[in-house]
């Protein structure tokens, strides 16, 4: 396929993915908006006013970047894992497999589709946060770059999960038992400076900590970790998971008999 045909195929997959999550917006876009509004009210306004400052900022200001990032992570992951598993389950993956679309285009299409939902929800949550606090973006490039790369990374994670999943339970296990705990412990609600030294060290093994803190740095200008290292790590994980996801597609794992 030449470049024009590849582009058409890529756009087709992305549009199909965007059409899917916007068609079921009550399931995909509304719940995170409600959940995050509740976080803003309860943790930001009600409890946050008693906590005082965190990292030199109002508690509400401090948690907003983390909550935006949490939405991006869970929605990017959730979009691809449910969409690609659904495609496998309903067997309409065969529509793609019989066509000449190369595997890297299939992967890119799903990942950008997932990132689109993650970023879309992130945008909605950002707009909602403006009802509760003023957002002054400290470093626009870092803010945009880190949120985009994180959405891509977790879309890739969702894709790999979907390839391995055989039942609907399998697509819920990773988000529930791995992703949510890592996100909650990834510095969304607190600075790791508050933790004892040992737990600070343990926290630094959590990759989500680096994404949340990089994003917070982009918005507030404060971070618990080194931004350069965080970027290197995110890009490294993208290359690793991207390569692995492509390998799975090339070998037909979970999709070809």
């Amino acid at each position, binding site marked *: 396929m030449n470049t024009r*045909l590849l582009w058409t*195929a890529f756009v087709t*997959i992305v549009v199909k993915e965007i*059409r899917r999550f916007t*068609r079921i917006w009550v399931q995909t876009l509304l719940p995170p908006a409600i959940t995050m509004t509740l976080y803003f009210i309860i943790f930001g306004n009600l409890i946050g006013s008693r906590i005082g400052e965190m990292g030199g900022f109002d508690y509400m200001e401090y948690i907003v970047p983390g909550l935006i990032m949490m939405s991006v992570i869970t929605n990017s992951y959730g979009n691809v894992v449910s969409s690609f598993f659904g495609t496998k389950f309903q067997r*309409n993956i065969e*529509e793609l497999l*019989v*066509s*000449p679309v190369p595997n890297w285009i299939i992967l890119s299409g799903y990942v950008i589709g997932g990132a689109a939902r993650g970023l879309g929800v992130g945008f909605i949550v950002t707009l909602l946060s403006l009802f509760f606090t003023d957002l002054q973006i400290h470093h626009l490039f870092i803010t945009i770059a880190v949120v985009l790369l994180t959405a891509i990374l977790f879309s890739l994670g969702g894709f790999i999960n979907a390839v391995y999943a055989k039942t609907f339970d399998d697509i819920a296990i990773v988000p529930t038992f791995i992703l949510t705990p890592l996100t909650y412990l990834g510095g969304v609600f607190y600075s790791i400076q508050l933790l004892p030294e040992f737990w600070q060290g343990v926290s630094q093994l959590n990759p989500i900590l680096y994404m949340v803190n990089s994003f917070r740095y982009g918005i507030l200008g404060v971070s618990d970790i080194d931004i350069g290292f965080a970027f290197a790590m995110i890009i490294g994980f993208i290359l690793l998971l991207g390569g692995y996801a492509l390998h799975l597609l090339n070998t037909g794992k979970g999709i070809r008999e």
Partner: protein
Amino acid sequence: MTTALSIQDLRKVYGNGFEALKGISLEVQRGDFFALLGPNGAGKSTTLGIVSSLVNKSSGKVSVFGHDIDTRLTQAKQCLGVVPQEFNFNPFEKVLDIVVTQAGYYGIGRKQATERAEHYLRKLGLWEKRNERARMLSGGMKRRLMIARALIHEPKLLILDEPTAGVDIELRRSMWDFLTEINAAGTTIILTTHYLEEAESLCRNIAIIDHGTIIQNTSMKALLQQLDTETFILDLKEDLDEVPTLDGYVIRSRDAHTLEVDVPKSAGLNALFQHLAAKGLEVTSMRNKANRLEELFVSLVDKNLKQESA
């Protein structure tokens, strides 16, 4: 003449050790309307799955219009349209979106895809349903939707895996007309079906696969000539007193005014009718007991089973 599909020594062993294909070889010529028949589990869907990249082969060679699927898969896929046995579209998507999206996977832009989709959906009587969700369609409409989707990139080779399963006879016949039309226009068609009447009336060449091996691969005409004996049902005007006998024919009574007669091809029907007329029996109507291909198919598969058991 270019070979539309060439399969050489194709083997497939599934992960559980089941050997679905035991080294089959097959050629389908360009422009052919080819039947691939076999009992359930014989290896038909595995063969077509490998050709359409849905199943990984264990060994062997497959090429589509000269494009080896190991080295020129993209080109091979461009030539191929597949209508699977089971519904495999997203039931929550609209009919038009399903067809246009499939076109996009072949690099066809939205404008051209929509024009082609209109053409094929109109041809298949689905244009009025274009904005319906696919799950709202009847079984026959869903089958036609899969045909429209498979044709959207105008493939040279169309594979139809039981396209008329569960479709009523009127609709089945209209689908036969449509398939005959696109075959006449140059599309090579490979058909699997359990309706042997369908294969007999549509296909020029045939392969029968059983237990992962090809047990027949010939023209439909040559295959039907192998049929030694045909069984006919004769309806009589009057009730029978006794079952007539005639050398060379096996005549049985089904009920008081119906006979079942095994007619050897060498004997023909004239002697039978003369004999019945001499006995004062008037035949009001006559029909084959079973489709001719069906009789052959059953006998070939039985013979293969006995050989395998021996």
